[in-house]
């Protein structure tokens, strides 16, 4: 099964994975490490009156109980789009599960005992949990307006609005209009590996191990928040045990880094699965879709309003709301469209993913939707009273490039964010990806003929960018190859080949 063109090579790093040698963050053995646990309060929104750590500090083995008072003033904040998330909740908690303090101890038992003994006095505050409640003019604000100065939305719970459209929707004539509002619940990515973080002071800098998907972004966040130059912040991100978009951005790394620097020892925080569920999620959404059909089965218009309930802190949710909404009309020729998507703050934990509008609007690019059983507009239209377009799905043709270019308002067709704009290229992408895999074989590398430069370039980029270690591991002694077989590996530059018998 190994390696030649057209065959399925064994997964790189697979040997370590089937033998249990693969070390995920929680498996790392860091000498002298302290075990951290989070202190939370049992409600969505609370005013913190006081935190008493005396009893907790009395537990043998407890080295540190970190409260907001131990952090710089003003409280350092971070976030990939808005710098809104505090290292620890300050004054008020904004979602259930938000940490108000954290304990570090020699043993897990001591840390757990100390968490129980941290006395947090708090007053529960009213909170909004639905789109309608959040949009009510009298609704309590999830974020203090001072966090987003000069922002016209800062006095509301709307973080941002995204508007895309073309054609004259009001003048569009339809023979049949189907309208429905689709509800999407919040869901967890549930990567099977719970989030885990380790920070270790190293000289005058710090090393941080994390299950993070964007280590370079994390490095910048930590350097800024700790006041260190980039060169003093080392991020190590071993292969995660699944992420699904849920481990993209900094979560508890800043807290663990501050704790490690304060304790002068490595600190390790491995979230429980329950804490992981409260660390990140996919947004819930309410998406209203109004679609106009003509009797010949073509579409007259699409009018879409999508409201996403994102977390109390923006994380990356709003950017994903933008990207998830503008291709909402799917691969169909739609002469007039209006898409309004709103990111709405709510007292829930952060969001890294959102449901795509396309799911509501009835189609996924390139995917064959089931004809029945889905309550999507196009299916609904087939059940609606006459004039009934016959099986409109068969008549409505996907747009070709020319039609798609109408999306130019949001970026050039075929650009990085225009996933539908260049369908053939998009389809070919996974095949390129597959070629990243090492080809440990004794055969000549036939693929190195016509377009090697491009492929090697990609491989190089991936290697440098991910730093996960195993993707391009040059060690040839893996994969259960037959003894004595010639081996070919490639080194860091992605070009070096080695032959050994």
């Amino acid at each position, binding site marked *: *099964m190994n390696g030649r063109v057209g065959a399925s090579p064994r*997964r790189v790093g*697979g040997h370590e994975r089937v*033998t*249990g040698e693969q070390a995920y963050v929680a498996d790392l053995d860091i000498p002298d490490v302290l075990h951290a646990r989070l202190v939370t309060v049992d409600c969505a929104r609370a005013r913190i009156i006081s935190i008493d750590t005396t009893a907790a500090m009395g537990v043998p083995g407890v080295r540190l109980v970190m409260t907001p008072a131990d952090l710089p003033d003003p409280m350092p904040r971070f976030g990939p789009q808005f710098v809104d998330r505090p290292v620890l909740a300050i004054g008020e908690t904004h979602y259930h599960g938000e940490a108000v303090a954290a304990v570090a101890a020699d043993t897990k*038992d001591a840390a757990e005992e100390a968490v129980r003994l941290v006395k947090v006095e708090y007053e529960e505050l009213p909170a909004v949990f639905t789109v309608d409640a959040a949009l009510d003019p009298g609704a309590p604000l999830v974020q203090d307006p001072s966090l987003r100065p000069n922002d016209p939305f800062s006095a509301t719970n709307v973080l941002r609005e995204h508007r895309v459209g073309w054609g004259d929707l009001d003048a569009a004539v339809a023979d049949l209009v189907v309208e429905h509002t689709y509800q999407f619940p919040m869901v967890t990515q549930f990567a099977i590996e719970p989030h885990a973080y380790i920070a270790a002071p190293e000289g005058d800098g710090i090393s941080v191990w994390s299950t993070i998907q964007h280590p370079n972004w994390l490095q910048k966040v930590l350097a800024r928040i700790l006041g260190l130059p980039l060169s003093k912040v080392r991020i190590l991100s071993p292969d995660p045990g699944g992420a699904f978009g849920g481990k993209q951005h900094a979560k508890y790394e800043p807290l663990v880094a501050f704790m490690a620097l304060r304790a002068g020892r490595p600190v390790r925080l491995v979230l429980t*699965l329950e804490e992981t569920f409260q660390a990140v999620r996919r947004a819930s959404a309410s998406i209203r879709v109004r679609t106009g059909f003509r009797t010949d089965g073509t579409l007259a218009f699409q009018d879409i309003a999508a409201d996403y309930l994102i977390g109390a802190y923006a994380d990356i949710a709003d950017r994903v709301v933008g990207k998830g909404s503008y291709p909402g009309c799917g691969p169909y020729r739609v002469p007039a469209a209006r898409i309004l998507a709103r990111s709405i703050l709510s007292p829930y934990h952060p969001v890294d993913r959102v449901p795509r509008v396309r799911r509501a609007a009835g189609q996924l690019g390139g995917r064959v939707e089931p004809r029945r059983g889905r309550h999507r507009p196009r299916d609904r239209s087939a059940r609606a009273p006459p004039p009934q377009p016959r099986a409109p799905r068969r008549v409505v043709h996907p747009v070709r490039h020319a039609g798609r270019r109408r999306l130019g308002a949001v970026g050039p067709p075929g650009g990085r964010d225009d996933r539908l704009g260049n369908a053939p290229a998009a389809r070919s992408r996974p095949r390129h990806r597959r070629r990243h895999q090492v080809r440990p074989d004794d055969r000549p590398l036939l693929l190195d003929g016509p377009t090697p430069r491009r492929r090697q370039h990609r491989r190089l980029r991936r290697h440098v960018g991910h730093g996960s270690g195993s993707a391009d591991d040059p060690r040839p002694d893996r994969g259960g190859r037959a003894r004595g077989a010639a081996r070919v590996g490639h080194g860091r530059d992605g070009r070096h080949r080695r032959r050994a018998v």
Partner: protein
Amino acid sequence: MTQPVHRLPVTMTVNRRVREFEVAAHHTLLDVLRDELGLTGAKECCLVGECGACTVIVDGRTVDACLMLAVEADGARLTTIEGLAEEGRLSPIQGAFLDHGGVQCGFCIPGQVISAHALLEANPHPTRAEVDEGIAGNLCRCGCYEQIAEAILATAKASDDLEGGRARTTEAAER
């Protein structure tokens, strides 16, 4: 330790090696394997017996190590993922997981491999339904179930062929 902790002496045979040590009465088998014996192949995920990432074999039966107290394993024979490959050579089921693309992120794989191994030990010729039942306690969030089931069936078939081959060789020798 925060309160007086009862530590009890236990003896276990872990991956064919007899180990004698003391465990805290409230620690699970998973705590002890990972934190005291350094066997981190069994993973910590749900801690409520839902995911199967911590599956180990205790006296021939698969067990979620997060649900068993370490003291309960006193005197038991344990096999963890670290004990399957002998002298660096993958066991057939481990090789089959790789050949059939059953491994993606890999976090659930130690548990999956252990469950598959135990299944084949107990039932060398499982049907597809029996395979599904055998790995029902192991979640794979990457969704490799199909490939994992194929790997298990292929391993069963390969050992079958091997046995058949041996039988034919013996027959030939006798003739």
